[in-house]
């Protein structure tokens, strides 16, 4: 009985999320129609441009990698009620650190590539410790602090590549990394690289950590109810700091994987806002490591398909950011995050009763 209830509750979340996404796309279609663009045409090119042939498909998949890894970074924090909006900055610093390790040392591949990825993790994780400290010991809201810390990270990396590090070629970027620090392509002559396996590995590890270890359990308990967790003897502050560190480290990894798999150097301003997209990806993915990959595919497809769409129609590329924003708004309206915590709580029945009647309240309001 309990299992069925759990399952139903889980399905309800999935259901409401899908509805939220569909509604968001309906609003986008409406907006396109109002501005005199053809929504059907837009969605046709979006799908064709993202899944239409092997090349487009591999392009889509290559964009899924940073999105899903960064999405996992966000969910690792969010599970412990740490809203890390600083993934963009952590990702940039991770990418820069990994690129430096990638070009500065000479090592065999078996060591060089992992070392470079670890450098990315370290940079992102350490940077995330600043808002972690601010939140746990100084009571500074982490959304505020993490967003603000994105600006110095951006300026710092820009400064490093334009003024401090040597430049090869015309674009502001670090020198190319060694062959030994690069991922191989999974499908030759495409952009789908070995970072794909890292993405799968990160999802599996995140799942194992959260679901199968006591530390993961404690992180989730903190996310659900801090006071209750403290009452049960869980070191709340330590777990939040850990969640922040892991979130930042994975964000840094997302940046490192982009360097090792795609650009082979730190390219100034290479991230098209993966850090901010990661929030949408994680929320649509129901804060589930595997759900994040699926929702990452959706947003990866959007980012890829938009290129074709912008070529063949008169619809601007900014549509992607717009869709992201509308989707988050709808998801937020569905209180999905709040619900996401519920299924993990010990006394599920009590919690689920509190949240299922959400629909009734709506009726109450509408009258």
């Amino acid at each position, binding site marked *: 009985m309990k299992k069925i209830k759990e399952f139903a509750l889980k399905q309800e979340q999935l259901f409401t999320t899908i509805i939220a996404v569909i509604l968001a796309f309906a609003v986008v279609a409406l907006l396109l129609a109002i501005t005199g663009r053809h929504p059907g045409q837009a969605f046709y090119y979006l799908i064709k441009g993202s899944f239409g042939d092997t090349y487009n498909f591999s392009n889509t998949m290559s964009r899924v990698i940073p999105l899903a890894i960064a999405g996992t970074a966000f969910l690792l924090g969010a599970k412990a009620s740490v809203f890390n909006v600083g993934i963009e900055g952590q990702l940039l610093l991770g990418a820069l650190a990994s690129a430096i390790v990638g070009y500065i040392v000479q090592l065999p591949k078996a060591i060089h590539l992992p070392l470079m990825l670890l450098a990315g993790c370290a940079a992102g994780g350490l940077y995330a410790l600043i808002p972690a400290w601010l939140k746990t010991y100084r009571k500074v809201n982490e959304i*505020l602090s993490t967003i*603000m810390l994105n600006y*110095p990270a951006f300026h710092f990396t820009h400064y490093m590549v334009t003024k401090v590090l040597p430049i090869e070629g015309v674009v502001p970027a670090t020198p190319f990394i060694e062959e030994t620090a690069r991922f191989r392509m999974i499908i030759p002559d495409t952009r789908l690289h070995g970072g794909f396996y890292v993405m799968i590995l990160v999802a599996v590890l995140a799942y194992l950590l959260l679901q199968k270890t006591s530390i993961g359990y404690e992180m989730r308990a903190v996310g659900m109810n801090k006071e209750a967790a403290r009452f049960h003897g869980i070191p709340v502050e330590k777990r939040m700091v850990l969640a922040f560190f892991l979130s930042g480290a994975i964000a840094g990894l997302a940046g490192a994987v982009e360097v090792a798999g795609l650009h082979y150097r730190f390219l100034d301003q290479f991230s098209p806002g993966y850090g901010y997209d990661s929030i949408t990806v994680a929320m649509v993915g129901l804060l589930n490591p595997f759900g994040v990959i699926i929702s990452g595919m959706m947003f990866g497809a959007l980012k890829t398909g938009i290129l074709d769409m912008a070529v063949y129609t008169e619809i601007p590329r900014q549509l992607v950011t717009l869709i992201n924003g509308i989707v988050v708004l709808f998801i937020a309206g569905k209180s999905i995050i709040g619900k996401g915590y519920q299924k993990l709580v010990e006394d599920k029945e009590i919690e689920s009763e509190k949240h299922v009647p959400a629909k009734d309240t709506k009726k109450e309001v509408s009258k």
Partner: protein
Amino acid sequence: MNLGEIIQSVFTLTLLYSTIRISISILFAGMGEMITERSGVLNIGVEGVMLLGAWAAAIASYFANNAWIGLLAAAGIGVVIGLVYAFIVVTHRAVQAITGLAIFLLSSGLTGFLLQIIFEHGGNSPRVPTLPMIHLGFLENVPVLGQIFNDQSVLMYPALLLPLILYFVFYYTPWGTWLRAAGENPKALAVVGVNPITVRYFAIVAGCLLAGVGGAYLSISQTSLFSENMVAGRGFIALSAVIFGNVKPRGVFMACMFFAFMDALQITLQAVVPAGVLPRELFMSLPYVLTLLILAGFIKRSGGPADIGNPYEKESR
């Protein structure tokens, strides 16, 4: 250039003039957010509301060829966003942090998209008509004050009066009492016959309206065009000012002025200090780093409303 010369060329009356100039948008947004937070609702999306306000102001000003219409449009879009936000977080009790974040993310996409649709090129809008600058004849002969307050935007006057007005409203009117009660103890407010939901709606809408105006100032007064993401963190700085100022008119006013001063200082230093000595990027990061340092060091938790961030739920009937 030695240190003495640098200090001399930084600390001038122009620095204070810039402080006031920069403070206007932060004051509007900060005062607005203060009203919202006093009622017990956090709006992380101030930055987004400002951006939408800046956008609406520029577009309306461009097409109506009248900056006042632009200002009105910014206020209008603020009200609309406020109603949407209130509907989601007050009526439907969604997580305020996430919803605010959504407004921030949405604003950047929406303004960029519509800018491209309307003008067929991204980045910037064309030049738009701006609000008048006020030059008072009698101030001309007043030393110091004349140089600081003359030739500022017409919006400076409401911006500087706002803290005073709000101080009066907060502590000497029934509205202020209701507002503070909605943030401290909404159930008690309901007992005396005032609906906390209504109060929070008004507080959110007022906050967003002011944030919209703060954004409008950026696009139709401080500059004369809209450019993508032109708010550049000012909304978050306004949010910090509200926390730093303990959600009280005097405190928030001081905090806004302080942050504005820091920003003015940063801009001046950028121009004065040779790039070889200290990098520009350092100065550009300064406002954010400093804000965080201040929040970390001086924060007092006693001043905020007790019920902040919590949705108000009626007793079941």
